[in-house]
């Protein structure tokens, strides 16, 4: 292996940037296929309603209309599936109602698709949907998960009693937790809502389905985070078409944040319809449709209690959550509030008794699924709010309270991993280290003085802490399978050395902003001792890349990078055999350093390029060795990875208006080994902005009719450039002990740590002037903060 690292650990500028800064990116909506027509949807204006009658006759006669499909036309087609089975406490399987491609008789949320109109132009399709006449009978609806489980609440699915999809618990038996809690000197209790968010990837979802009669083959271009997974779900579970007859391409994708993981009904519909009409069909979501239909995130109603002894040691944690799943089950909706939420309740602390109880609930709302962090932000919010609030209530310092309860440092090699009360075993951690560093960076010693001085000048300052842990690269497949996952969670990496020594890498990971084309090339170039320019990273096409599970859960480098590393090991091992034959020594005598195969202790060597050429022109070659230098590997991780960090927010509240200004934000993140610090920092910045967005700006508001009352950029408050200061980032490196690169993942960290830090800072500011507020409903708008002060 290469001894020097020319690229790993360096802030190499991104190789993919040029196409994006010059307008040459190729997103799905940029693609026009010959003969392509356009689709538009008739969508239900009501949440819960019976469809009495649909009349498409007038619309069919409109100019340019090619075809119109309704629920009756697709009734025989399966719905889109859920990828994770969660069982009831009594062992019964969860309720899993059909999620049809088009609704035939009953709508279940505003925006449910009733008809799909296809016309020659986008404008003609939109004109024609206006001419489809649908007669609805509006029924009562329910949107709040805690209300939906009450007797007499309107039912989303007639065969799902009390709208309960599953009830589930994890951790120690309730009786043990109750007993520990009863011994607490102080119990901090929090009733709160972790509000519903819209992911808001800037590229609206876009799909093109295309069927070729001569080869009986379909192509789907889709703005997805995981082309192969979409192909698998669509072929095997929805349309029942053979997988080898479907190519799924995820070209440039404009952000995902989870919302483009899932298999959406529109993907299957454009694919199926393209065969029915014999033309390629494009459908691109409008932003107003994105607000209605891109899978939302969060939406938990929770009661949480944390018991402390007289010295501030945590004795017990008890959590009851009602998780809103929406009207149907999206692909990973069921694992988010359970295995990605309940399992994180240990946090960074030695809490000896934990019980988490989660009820998954159907409501007359859009589906809820993984959104950046997925379950882990909700768990972190709960824990870190309880810690800071507990400190305020007990009159102790929030940093001291954390130091008292941290799990001691362990590297996962000399010291074993840490077994939590909630199923996980942490890989490695140094939790004191990141808080110490955070306190230094923020200048905590001086802050309380500044806070008092500011108060004297009529200003209201507050500081909030959050020390989080997350679980990334979820695996191994056997374990997640036993927990209900209906897919493996490995990754595929193929390294093809071309005869000239140039390298093409095919990865099942998918970049939609993460910069894989740069980071993965840094790794490959260093490990093979060749220039980065000699490495090309290829992803996003099921016909080109052997297989893949895609990008989500901060898994690309930890899982996808490890698969590439396995293939590199195979390349080097084969290269040694070729070199040994040419240099007339045995394989063990060859070492691979700095891109050269060298006979140990001598200057006799062959370059990587010479070995590559020999592999493809095998004239002087081992008799029993195949020609070529091209390996593909599957990597199934041994464990999750566990990045962690410390986020500290300082806010100022305008006493007159209640407006909260974020004055400083310090983030110290330990994501294991870092390949490209620039890209990692960028991920942290973006995640922090989204987390701050949840705390201060964002939130879906459903009215009692089930309408989203803020479904546009005029109404939904997206964080903008002048909402933020420059972020202050720091890092610590505790390598992951169980993958070859030591990496843990950085995609979601910022979004997980930041939200509670900001809310804690606002609560701290209020307490500093005697307003002993326990909770503020997010987003903490000026009105809500002003009301808390007055």
């Amino acid at each position, binding site marked *: 292996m290469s001894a020097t690292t020319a690229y790993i650990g360096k*802030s190499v*500028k*991104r190789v*993919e*940037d*040029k*196409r*994006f*800064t*010059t*307008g*040459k*990116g*190729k*997103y799905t*909506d*940029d693609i*026009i296929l010959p003969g392509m027509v356009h689709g538009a949807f008739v969508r239900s204006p009501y949440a819960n309603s019976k469809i009495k009658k649909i009349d498409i006759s007038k619309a069919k006669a409109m100019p340019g209309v090619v075809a119109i499909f309704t629920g009756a036309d697709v009734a025989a087609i399966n719905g889109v599936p859920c990828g994770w089975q969660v069982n009831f406490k009594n062992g019964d399987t969860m309720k899993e109602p059909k999620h049809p491609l088009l609704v035939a008789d009953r709508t279940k949320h505003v925006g449910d698709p009733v008809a799909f109109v296809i016309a020659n132009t986008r*404008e003609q399709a939109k004109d024609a949907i206006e001419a489809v006449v649908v007669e609805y009978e509006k029924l009562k609806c329910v949107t709040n998960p805690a209300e939906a489980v009450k007797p007499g609440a309107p039912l989303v699915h007639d065969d799902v009693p009390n709208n309960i999809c599953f009830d589930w618990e994890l951790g120690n038996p309730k009786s043990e937790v109750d007993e520990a809690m009863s011994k607490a000197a102080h119990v901090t209790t929090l009733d709160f809502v972790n509000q519903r968010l819209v992911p*808001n*990837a*800037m*590229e*609206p979802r876009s799909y093109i389905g295309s069927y070729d009669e001569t080869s009986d083959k379909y192509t789907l271009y889709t703005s997805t985070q995981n082309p192969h997974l979409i192909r698998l779900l669509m072929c095997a579970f929805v349309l029942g078409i053979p997988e080898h007859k479907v190519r799924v391409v995820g070209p*440039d*994708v*404009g*952000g995902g*944040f989870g919302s483009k993981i899932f298999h959406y009904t529109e993907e299957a519909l454009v694919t199926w319809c393209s065969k029915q009409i014999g033309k390629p069909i494009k459908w691109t979501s*409008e*932003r*107003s449709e994105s607000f209605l239909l891109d899978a939302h995130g969060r939406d938990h109603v929770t009661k949480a209690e944390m018991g402390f002894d007289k010295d501030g040691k945590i004795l017990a944690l008890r959590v009851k959550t009602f998780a809103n799943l929406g009207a149907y089950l999206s692909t990973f909706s069921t694992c988010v509030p359970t295995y990605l939420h309940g399992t994180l309740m240990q946090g960074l602390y030695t809490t000896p008794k934990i019980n988490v109880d989660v009820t998954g609930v159907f409501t007359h709302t859009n589906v809820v699924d993984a959104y950046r962090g997925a379950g882990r932000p909700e768990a972190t919010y709960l824990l870190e709010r309880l810690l800071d609030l507990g400190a305020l209530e007990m009159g102790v310092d929030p940093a001291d309270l954390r130091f008292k309860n941290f799990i001691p440092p362990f590297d996962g090699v000399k010291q074993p991993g840490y077994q939590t009360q909630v199923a996980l075993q942490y890989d490695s951690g140094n939790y004191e280290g990141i808080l110490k560093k955070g306190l230094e960076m923020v200048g905590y010693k001086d802050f309380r003085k500044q806070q008092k001085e500011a108060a004297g000048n009529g200003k209201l300052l507050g500081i909030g802490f959050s020390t989080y842990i997350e679980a990334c690269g979820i695996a191994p497949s056997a374990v997640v399978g036993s927990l209900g996952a209906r897919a493996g969670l490995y990754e595929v990496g193929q390294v093809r050395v071309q005869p000239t020594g140039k390298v093409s890498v095919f990865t099942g990971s998918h970049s*939609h*902003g*993460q*910069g894989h084309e740069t980071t993965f090339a840094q790794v490959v170039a260093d490990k093979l001792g060749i220039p980065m320019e000699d490495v090309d990273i290829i992803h996003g096409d099921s016909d080109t890349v052997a297989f893949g599970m895609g990008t989500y859960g901060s898994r690309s480098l930890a899982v996808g990078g490890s698969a590439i590393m396995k293939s590199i090991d195979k390349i080097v091992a084969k290269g040694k055999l070729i070199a040994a034959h040419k240099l007339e020594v045995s394989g063990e005598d060859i070492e691979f350093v700095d891109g050269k195969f060298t006979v140990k202790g001598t200057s006799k060597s062959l370059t990587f390029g010479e070995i590559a050429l020999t592999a493809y022109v095998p004239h002087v070659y081992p008799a029993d060795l195949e020609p070529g230098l091209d390996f593909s590997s599957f990597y199934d991780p041994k464990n999750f990875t566990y990045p962690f960090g410390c986020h500290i927010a300082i806010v100022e509240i305008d006493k007159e208006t209640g407006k909260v200004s974020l004055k400083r934000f310090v983030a110290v993140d330990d994501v294991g080994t870092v390949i490209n610090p*620039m*890209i990692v*920092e*960028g991920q942290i*910045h*973006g*995640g*922090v*902005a*989204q987390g701050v967005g949840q705390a201060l700006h964002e939130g879906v508001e459903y009215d009692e009719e089930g309408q989203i009352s803020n479904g*546009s*950029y*005029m109404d939904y408050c*997206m*964080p*903008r*450039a*002048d909402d*933020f200061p*420059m*972020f202050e980032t720091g890092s610590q490196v505790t390598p992951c002990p169980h993958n070859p690169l030591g990496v843990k993942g950085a995609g979601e960290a*910022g979004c997980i740590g930041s939200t509670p830090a900001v809310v804690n800072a606002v609560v701290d500011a209020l307490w500093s002037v005697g307003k002993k507020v326990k909770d503020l409903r997010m987003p903490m708008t000026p009105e809500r903060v002003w009301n808390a002060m007055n």
Partner: protein
Amino acid sequence: MNIKIKVNGVEQSHDVEPRLLLSHYLRDTLRLTGTHIGCDTSGCGACTIHVDGKAVKSCTMLAVQASGCDIVTIEGLSSNGTLHPLQEGFNQEHGLQCGFCTPGMIMTAADLLKNNPKPSEGEIRHSLEGNICRCTGYHNIVKSIQYAAKKM
């Protein structure tokens, strides 16, 4: 209706529907797909271009309203193969991730720097109020514009 319009230095003439948005004309008729459409309420700024030298959200104009105008899109910003300092700055300071908002950000920033060659951090942030980025938290976009301001 017939429109005559200069786009990135090239005279264009097309018959278009009166309701056709300028953003759709650029993308669908001229195939200049660097101008992105991210919303339907003129809220995101991804479609920002220059019309007669001023930054304009191209979804707020009809193609017919742009007849007779001189338009520059992201594809026309670099000259003779040399990247505009903003295009260079966004690469140097990691001002983009998924790239979808990037053309609009760059076109908005180009307008800012033309009128205010040495903007403060606050002025840069204020000027980006009409452009949404979901990836970067704006931190590195601000730095990218500062980079370009220094360079220009």
